[in-house]
């Protein structure tokens, strides 16, 4: 595992005996500079802005509003970093082998649903260890698959050291993982040799400069593949004074060339009692001013994340807080969650966050949009794997998240609107379930069966805006469906009064 750094949204599995209290006090500066000199909204793009708008680890704005959780399902690691010692994890840690902490994929889903219900701000679930997610491909992919199917409104992310990332890109795309954090501490194999004791790849241990060379080559190939796949990428780097401090600005230039969205330079945590190589060798931690200086110098290349809390591989809650102890398996086991209903409550809560409470004071609608390019209503219902959700009120509209479904139809775009093949029925059922709580759905086209099925569960369909721009359609939409909104509003008030 990657102790300082293998951080998902942001993971740091602290190894100190008093890690609970220390983690909470490891608060770094809470501002983020998402305005690097070369940045502009146009450069970042709407799709990326929507992707990060609810991810606390990618957006400074989001980290005040949205929560994250890490599922500790990945114990094994394939790299020995000099800042990490797995052996001395404290009793409160998500230490592998401590059965109550390490989760099976099924337990992970159970816990995730309980947390999503209790903390409706939860927008992102990450796998960040306590080892490396991709050194545990079966456990990690099984967990992601269960989450993806059962929790359509949750964003999935992983945090990896990048050694085997290139081997798993297709799985990550298939499972709808759209944020990946890669820990990269050096681009130079000689520097890397001072940071990593060894790597394990395809049955063999490599050390020294050779290990550094293989790791860097595979990390960069992984970054390129992520970019090609459209997966938003953050890079974590541990600032190690005297080893990579002068090198990180050069690294950030290379990250920019590879379309990395955010660079999170974190201070090395190094104490003798941690039992790490660096802790025992007397390697010092960077001062705050050293950290600021390197971030400043790197900020001209890639936006810098400065609100990272270096949290644990089983953290739960808003950044800077850890509520994981409230969600021990033994405590939540007896309360299975009705997730479709939970999803309705969560959408309502997230609408209130996005509209600053307006959705709780007046009639509103939740509209799902089938868009492949994020700007036009351009998708056939059956070809959509991710619906974008917006909240509409009389005067405003707000992006409130997404619902991911398994694509219901694999036919061509100009297919006739006839009955689906029998095997599509279960996909349709899942799609309907995933859209629970949506009032209105806009797509370019829809078949007869799904149309009926949606109408049966009270979702109004409208295909009259096919191929029009989302931004031009949304402002006038509320007045067209005002009656639907008011009926819903009355029902909501009635429910609350009675």
């Amino acid at each position: 595992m990657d102790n300082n750094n293998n951080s998902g949204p942001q993971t740091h599995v602290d190894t100190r005996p008093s890690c609970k209290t220390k983690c909470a006090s490891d608060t770094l500066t809470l501002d983020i500079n998402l305005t690097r000199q070369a940045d502009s909204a146009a450069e970042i793009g709407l799709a990326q802005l929507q992707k990060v708008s609810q991810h606390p680890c990618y957006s400074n704005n989001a980290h005040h509003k949205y929560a994250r959780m890490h599922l500790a399902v990945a114990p094994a690691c394939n790299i020995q970093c000099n800042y990490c010692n797995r052996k001395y994890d404290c009793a409160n840690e998500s230490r592998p082998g401590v059965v109550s902490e390490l989760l099976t994929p099924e337990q992970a889903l159970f816990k995730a649903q309980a947390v999503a219900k209790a903390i409706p701000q939860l927008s992102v679930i990450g796998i960040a260890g306590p080892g490396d997610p991709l050194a545990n491909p079966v456990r990690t992919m099984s967990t992601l698959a269960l989450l993806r199917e059962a929790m359509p409104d949750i964003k999935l992310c992983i945090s990896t050291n990048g050694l085997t990332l290139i081997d798993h890109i297709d799985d990550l795309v298939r499972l709808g993982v759209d944020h990946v954090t890669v820990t990269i501490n050096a681009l130079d194999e000689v520097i890397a040799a001072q940071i990593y004791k060894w790597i394990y790849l395809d049955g063999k241990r490599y050390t020294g400069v050779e290990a550094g060379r293989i790791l860097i080559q595979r990390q960069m190939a992984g970054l390129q593949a992520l970019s090609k796949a459209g997966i938003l990428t953050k890079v974590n780097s541990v600032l190690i004074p005297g080893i990579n401090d002068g090198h990180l600005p050069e690294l950030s230039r290379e990250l920019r060339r590879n379309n990395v969205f955010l660079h999170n330079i974190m201070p090395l945590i190094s104490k003798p009692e941690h039992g790490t190589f660096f802790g025992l060798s007397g390697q010092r931690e960077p001062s705050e001013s050293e950290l600021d200086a390197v971030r400043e110098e790197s900020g001209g290349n890639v936006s810098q994340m400065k609100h990272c809390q270096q949290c644990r591989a089983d953290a739960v809650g808003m950044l800077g807080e850890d509520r994981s102890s409230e969600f021990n398996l033994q405590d939540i086991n007896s309360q299975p969650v009705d997730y479709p209903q939970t999803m309705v409550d969560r959408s309502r809560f997230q609408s209130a966050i996005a509209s600053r409470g307006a959705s709780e004071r007046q009639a509103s609608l939740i509209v799902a949009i089938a868009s492949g390019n994020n700007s036009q209503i351009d998708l056939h219902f059956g070809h959509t794997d991710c619906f974008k959700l917006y909240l509409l009120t009389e005067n405003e509209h707000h992006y409130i998240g997404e619902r991911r479904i398994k694509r219901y139809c694999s036919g061509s775009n100009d297919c006739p609107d006839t009955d689906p093949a029998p095997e599509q029925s279960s996909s349709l059922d899942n799609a309907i379930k995933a859209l629970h709580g949506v009032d209105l759905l806009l797509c370019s086209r829809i078949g007869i069966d799904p149309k009926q099925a949606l109408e049966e569960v009270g979702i109004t369909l409208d295909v009259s805006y096919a191929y029009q721009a989302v931004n031009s359609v949304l402002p006038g939409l509320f007045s067209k469906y005002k009656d639907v909104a008011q009926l819903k509003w009355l029902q909501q008030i009635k429910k609350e009064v009675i």
Partner: protein
Amino acid sequence: MALQIGEECFACYACETVCPAGAISCQGDRFVINPALCSECQDIDTPRCIAICPEPGVIRNAKKRD
């Protein structure tokens, strides 16, 4: 002919994940190797579990190879 995992094992699962024979499993708070299944990875120089174990010397009795 089989490898053994010493008591210093702190159960990080790495060996279990890479064992091609499925010989390694969790027993309580540490891992053990089933001697009936372990072949000491005859196809490569160093058995995979030893190559990935983060704790030096915990997995022992590897057959000496030339």
